[in-house]
Each structure stands twice: as structure tokens, then as C-alpha cells.
């Protein structure tokens, strides 16, 4: 072990104690990012710990990546440097919980599953279905503004965060927003942190607005024959008085893949729309009737499922990143964002591109939201994959959107920017980054424009 590493460890031990600094190779490689493992993992126990660690790391010129379970570490460009993994595992306290005010203030290390269970006892939830699912941490969800199909009805973390405290590399704790549901005092700094992927500061506390759990939920499935029927159905449903909680369009490979291993496993030959409705039995009955009418008009049959039966399908759809690599190790996961109306068009073009390459593509479109996931399942040589990614990005951009590479082998990442090219506001973003993190301590090279 060289002296620099020793110095670093000594400093961190002085801050958080020896039991909270780990440098065993197994622990480090578990949190490796794009082939790079950190020198050590630090487990702060408080906001004060985090600020001290960050200031120390900045002084020593180290690079820090904040994390918890690492469910989203795969997203982003490869880090330029990576010395310390700052694991917020031990910061999982609830500071303030007022169920009758529907507000809660928690530390970032709390796991999403535990949190939902905790507030669920009072009939509340944070209506998100992010990648990483129950294993994701609240801090990670906020830092990546992680959403799934539920974004359609409920919005994103961006819309649920009331305020937060952020540890800066200067060693300060900065407060943004507050704990009340409506607040316009001062700049909305929290917005900058939400979706910043740990590049500006470390969120050490977040206040959320909570929502009542719906009375009941049911899932409806509609095989649509063709994508143009799917488009027609989407329009009819979104223009109807119905307000689905979530609605996705799966191409046959996506549907078959997601259903595999569940009690609902079956061969799938046509695109399917899955949607979830909520409300009292009376409301659900009405929804069923309306959907039946819409499906009939489009010539599609309608299947009705209790949401309990469909829950693992929904989890599968929103948390591809967790199970798909297990089944298809070389999988490349892409996320396209675009104006919603072009969803089917992009899916169709993507299928065409994949077919040209004889590649297998599973496509998941979150309807009404404008998010599509493409999973390239076949093992192919890097240049072929690269070519396909670039063509899919081209397709997304030509439809007014962007394409993010969420997961792929790191040798591909070196040759394609995970985020795509930045816009004319990038100069301002760079200055924002410099303001928070002048020395490039936090996740250097990982974000937009490899900043």
C-alpha cells in the first residue's frame, strides 16, 4: 500500500472511525464503476461525517463517488478518477415524519423498499417505481431523478422533493427548500441536485411530499396487433377521461422476456399495452368498461388482472437493470427521452434498425411520458453494437429526443458518450459544476459532456 493511500485512510479513519473505512478488495470492487474500483469505501454516519470526508477528499485531491447499493452506478460516462466510494449505507434515519401532514424528512441511505414499508403503515407512499426498485436508496433516487412508468400520473422525484440538505466539498451543509408543501423562498437549489448524479454535492437529508396509497389497483393488458394500432389506442386512452397510473407499450420480445419466469409466462406475438388503473371497486368497474370499449374499437382483446398478480411484471418493467443482466450478461440498455407522441414511431424505427443488424431488441415504451427503454439482447461485437447505438441515437434525435446509454460494457462507453451531446446551456452547467465542486472531487468525468 502506497503512502498516499495510507494518508487518505488515516484521515478518513480520524473522521468516521476505523470501522467505517473499508479497503478490502472485495468491498471496493463491489462498488467499482466501469471497471475502476475505489481505493477505499467510507461509511459516514452523519451529515457532519459527510462534510468532513468531502472536505478532506477535496484537500487531498481525491475523487469521490457517492453511492449506496450501486443500483444506478452503471449509468454515466466512465469516471476520470475514482479513489473513494462514499457509501451512505449507514445514514438511514428518519428525521421528521408527520403522516397527517403527508411529509417526511429522511436520510439518503434508507432503502426505497424499507421506506415504502415504513410510510405504508399509515396508508402513504412515495409513488415512484424507479430502477433498482426496493433496493434503490432514496438518495440515489433523488440524485438521479429516477422514475418509472408511474411518472405518468404522479410525476418524478423532482415533483415530490420539498427540500434537502446538501453536503458540499467545501465542508458545509447547505439547505434548500423546506419541509412544507409549498415554498418559493429563495432559489430552488434542490432542483439542481435532483438528477445531478452525485456531481455537485452529497444529499444528506431530503424532505418529501407523500401521497395516499390508492384504494385499489388493477392491471389491464391489450395486445395491439401492430404499432399503429398501439398508437391509436394510446391516443384514445389518453384523450379519454381515464387517468392511468402507468401505461407501457412492450414489443413482443420485451413482453415475453418480462413475463418469463412469472406465473403469467406465455409466448407473445404482438405488441402489448399494459396499464394500471386505481380507485374504488366502482371506479375500477367504470375503467374496465371504458377500456373494453376502447379496445373493442381498436380490435384488441382486453385482459384484466388483479394488480397483485401483475406486480412482479410491473417491477420487471421498471427495474430492467436489476434482472436483465443476470439473464443476458452482455445486454446493452438504452433510454430514449422524446415527445411522447413519437413513442411508437421510435419503437418501430428501433425494431427496424435492430432487424437490419440481426440483433434482438426488447422495447419498453412508457406511454404518456415519452421514455423508451431499448435492450439489445444479442451478444455482438463492439463495433456492431456501437453502430447500432449511434443509429438509434440518430433516430431518437431526429424525432426531437435524446438517447442515453444506461448500461453497456465500459469499452463501448469510451467510444460513445453515455448522455449524448450537450445543448447550448452546457457552458452554464459547467459553471454550476465549478461553483459546487471546483476541484472536480465528485464523480469526475461521469456526467454530461464528461464533466
Amino acid at each position: 500500500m502506497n503512502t498516499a493511500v495510507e494518508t487518505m485512510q488515516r484521515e478518513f479513519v480520524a473522521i468516521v472511525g476505523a470501522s467505517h473505512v473499508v479497503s478490502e478488495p472485495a468491498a471496493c470492487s463491489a462498488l467499482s464503476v466501469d471497471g475502476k474500483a475505489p481505493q477505499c469505501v467510507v461509511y459516514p454516519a452523519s451529515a457532519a461525517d459527510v462534510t468532513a470526508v468531502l472536505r478532506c477528499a477535496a484537500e487531498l485531491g481525491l475523487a469521490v463517488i457517492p453511492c449506496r447499493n450501486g443500483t444506478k452506478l452503471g449509468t454515466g460516462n466512465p469516471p476520470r478518477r475514482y479513489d473513494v466510494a462514499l457509501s451512505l449505507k449507514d445514514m438511514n434515519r428518519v428525521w421528521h415524519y408527520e403522516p397527517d401532514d403527508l411529509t417526511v424528512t429522511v436520510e439518503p441511505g434508507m432503502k426505497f423498499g424499507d421506506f415504502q414499508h415504513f410510510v405504508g403503515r399509515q396508508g402513504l407512499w412515495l409513488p415512484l417505481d424507479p430502477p433498482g426498485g426496493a433496493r434503490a436508496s432514496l438518495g440515489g433516487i433523488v440524485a438521479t431523478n429516477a422514475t418509472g412508468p408511474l411518472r405518468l400520473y404522479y410525476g418524478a422525484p423532482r415533483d415530490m422533493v420539498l427540500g434537502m440538505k446538501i453536503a458540499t466539498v467545501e465542508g458545509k451543509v447547505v439547505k434548500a427548500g423546506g419541509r412544507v408543501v409549498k415554498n418559493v423562498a429563495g432559489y430552488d437549489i434542490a432542483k439542481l441536485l435532483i438528477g445531478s448524479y452525485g456531481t455537485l454535492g452529497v444529499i444528506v437529508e431530503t424532505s418529501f411530499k407523500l401521497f395516499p396509497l390508492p384504494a385499489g389497483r388493477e392491471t389491464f393488458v391489450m395486445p395491439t396487433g401492430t404499432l399503429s394500432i398501439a398508437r391509436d389506442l394510446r391516443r384514445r386512452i389518453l384523450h379519454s377521461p381515464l387517468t392511468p397510473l402507468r401505461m407501457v407499450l412492450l414489443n413482443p420480445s420485451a413482453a415475453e422476456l418480462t413475463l418469463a419466469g412469472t406465473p403469467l409466462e406465455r409466448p407473445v406475438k404482438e405488441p402489448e399495452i399494459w396499464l394500471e388503473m386505481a380507485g374504488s371497486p366502482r371506479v375500477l368497474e367504470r375503467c374496465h368498461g371504458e377500456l373494453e370499449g376502447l379496445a373493442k374499437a381498436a380490435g384488441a382483446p382486453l385482459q384484466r388482472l388483479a394488480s397483485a398478480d401483475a406486480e412482479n411484471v410491473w417491477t420487471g418493467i421498471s427495474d430492467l437493470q436489476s434482472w436483465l443482466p443476470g439473464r443476458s450478461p452482455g445486454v446493452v440498455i438504452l433510454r430514449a427521452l422524446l415527445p411522447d407522441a413519437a413513442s411508437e414511431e421510435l419503437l418501430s424505427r428501433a425494431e427496424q434498425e435492430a432487424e437490419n443488424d440481426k440483433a434482438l431488441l426488447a422495447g419498453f415504451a412508457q406511454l404518456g411520458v415519452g421514455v423508451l427503454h431499448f435492450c439489445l439482447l444479442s451478444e455482438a461485437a463492439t463495433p456492431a453494437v456501437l453502430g447500432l447505438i449511434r443509429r438509434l441515437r440518430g433516430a431518437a434525435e431526429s424525432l426531437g429526443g435524446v438517447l442515453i446509454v444506461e448500461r453497456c460494457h465500459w469499452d463501448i462507453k469510451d467510444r460513445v458518450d453515455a448522455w449524448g451531446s450537450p445543448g447550448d446551456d452546457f457552458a452554464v452547467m459547467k459553471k454550476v459544476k465549478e461553483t459546487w465542486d471546483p476541484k472536480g472531487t465528485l464523480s469526475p468525468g461521469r456526467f454530461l459532456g464528461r464533466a
Partner: protein
Amino acid sequence: MKPRPLVRELTRLLGPDAVLWRTEDVMLYEYDGLSVTAPPEAVVLPSTTEHVVGIVKLAAREGVPVVARGAGTGLSGGSVAMEGGIVIGFARMKRIIEIDIENLRARVQPGVVNMDLTLAVGDQGCYFAPDPSSQKACTIGGNVAENAGGPHTLAYGVTTNHILGLEVVLPDGEIIHTGARFWDRPGYDLTGFVVGSEGTLGIVTEITARLSRKPEAVKTLLAIYDDVLDAPRTVAAITARRITPAALEMMDGFTLRAVEAAFHAGFPMDSAAVLLIEVEGLRETVEDDADQIEAICQENHAREVRRAKSAEERDLLWRGRKNAFGALGRISPNYYVQDGVIPRTRLPEMLGFIGQVGQKYQLRIGNIFHAGDGNLHPLLMFDARDKDQTVRVTKAAGEIMAKCVEMGGSLTGEHGVGIEKRDLMPLIFSADDLEMMQKLKAVFNPRGTLNPAKLLPTTKMCGEIRVQISTGGVL
């Protein structure tokens, strides 16, 4: 009177019709909805983004402040040129550039009046969700600057939840495009940061807004109480029962008598408080919710719960609510309106406290709350010609504000900080917090020429709170 060289250059850029500089003209731009006044040296009325770029560049060269102004309906002084300079009025940039119903988007210029967008998309079953009481006059640019709210933001969120992207002119004349025409573009959420920045970060010249679909059914309930505290108790109970109405508004007896006298909306003159509750959605959902809410109101001793029987009745109730400030303006020469926020569970306690403060300082206080989200608008009545009353109002306002902070609340829920609450910011933010805000402001506005003297305290607070009292435009 001869125009200064800067004015001559502005005139060359925009035409004589779009530049005001005579004392008798700029005098009309020294105020907004708050009553702190300061006239600009010139007012320009651009028609295009290019105009704005030209104006901003000239101002930068001369080191002159630039202040953006929509309709001047703001209640925190956001559009008043505290340090003079140029006011950019957006009254002539009011084009709806594009309406895209399938994607639920609209691109608009900042001068488009909030209600005009809703009217423009109404035939297609859509509307723009933020609905501040001034929505018939206020502009979307102003809504963006102040992150405006309104009664229906309880269920649908404030302005920031409905803005996808912005075109922003920075003080050096550079144009940037933040966000996109879809959600969650990679990169920092500059859109979210600029919304609510009160014109201190850049001049917004185009807005991509999200449209919402009109619900199938709406029911409006009016719950009437004999004990004023039962109303906030009902609000707390509704929230605790996990029902989120689209709107949940409270007016106390004093206010609703003024409203009723002015608008004859059907509010009971003899009650102590009313709740105006609206539920929206599918017919069945609305019926279920309305029944449950009615039951909760009864449990909390509502004397009567009425349901609006027609769209006209509903409109009348809302007209009364949205014009309530003005109705109180009829019975008092001046009033001071506050905008504090507290946790909803503390509403009964707060209402009691406000009553005590009123008694202590011998003031009439009308209470209009966006009760559903704990946003309070106590209106303190006074006559600015009476110095003693004015002193008492100042003290009472300070005590109410301090109580909001003590309860873990905020200084402002929707009106903005502006000049009014600028110096109160240290009550809820530490020096470190404010320093970070200052540094981030400098990223966009390094020389501080955009809307100077707003939002951030100019000096460290030396143990004093100065509440800025609006004097209603006369004194």
C-alpha cells in the same frame, strides 16, 4: 427633456413606439402589486428575442440594471426597478407560438396572459394548471419568474411542475435553451432553477409549458362553520384521511362578509368560516370523494355543506374566492397580505394565534388560506394615513411571520421574496445557504445587473426584521 444616448440607442433598436423614457411615462412603471416604488430610467417593449438580446447587450455595456416585467401583478415587488435602469415590459410579446395537444405542450412568449393560454386550449379539453388569483391578467413569464401557485396547485403542483423548457437570455446577451420539449433531459435542471428565480438569473423569452387535461367531472362543495377553528380542523382531517381535493380553500367570516357584499356569490353572511372544496376526476371518483369529504365536514361540526348545482354557481363561488383580496380592499383603505406556509396539521393552532395577534394589536385581520397546502394569506387591515396603525400592522405581521418560521414553515408559498421579504431570508436560511445562493446567482448574473436588490438580503441581518408594508397605492 431630451433622451439620454442610451435611450436613443434603444430607440434605434426597437423603434420610438417601443421605448418609454419621459418622466410622465416611466412613472407608470414604478410600481407593481406591492407598493414599494422606484421608477426606471427607461421602459422597453420588445417584440422578439433578438430585441431582448440587443437590450441586454446595451445594458451590459453601460452597466445598467435590467428588470423584466409581465403585467406587474406581483405581490413582492419583483418587477420594480429598485436601482433604476431599464424595465423590459413583455406586454407585446404575447404570442402563443405553438400548441401541441397530443404531446400536451404549448410554446408561448412570456407576455401571454395565463388565462389566455387556458382559453386557447380549452376547446381541445385542456388547460394550463397554475391558476393564481390574478390569472386573468398575470403573464406566464411572470408565473415562471415567481413560480406562481394558486388554489388548484394543491393537487396539480405549482408553476415549476408545469414547465418543460425555457429560452433564456443571459445578461451578456447569450441565448440558452434549458430543458426540452420532453421531461428529464440529461444535465442539470436549469429550468427548475430558473423558475422562481424572480428575474435575477436571466430574461426568459420563450416558455415550453405542459398542458393538463380537463377532468371529466368537478364538484364544488361549500362547508359552512359557526366556529372558525372547525374549518382548519376539517382541513387537517381531510388531509389525514388521505383525500387530496383539487382545491381546499378557507375564508373566515370577516373575509366572506366582505366578499359576499361585493359579489353576492352565495356565501353565508353569518358564519364564522367557510371551506371551499373542489374534487375532480372521473364521475365515480368525484362522487365518492365528495361524499367522504362531506362526512368529514359534518364530523367537524359544519353547520351545512352545500354543493354547487351548476357551472354558474361554481364560477360564482370561485369568483368570490379569487377576488377576495380586492373585496377586503373595498372595506379598508390599505391592507398588508402575508404569504406564510405552515404544516397543515398546525392550521387550527395558527388560526388561533392570528386571532390573538389581532386582538393584541387591535387590528382587523381577514384570513384567506390555501388551507389544503398550509399556505396562509392573513390580510391585515389598516389606514396608511394613521401612523400608529401602520406601526401595529408591522409588528403584528412580524409576529405572524415568526410563528410560521417557528412551526417549521416558510416565509412565502407563492408570492415570492422580491423586495418585500428579502431581508427576512436569514430567518430560514443560514449564512452558508445564502452564500451558496449568491454564488449560483453569480453563475448567471455575475455583475448583479439583473433585477438588483431582490431575493437575496443585501446586508447581513443585524437582529432586525423589517416587514415591508403594502400601502395600497395611495401613500
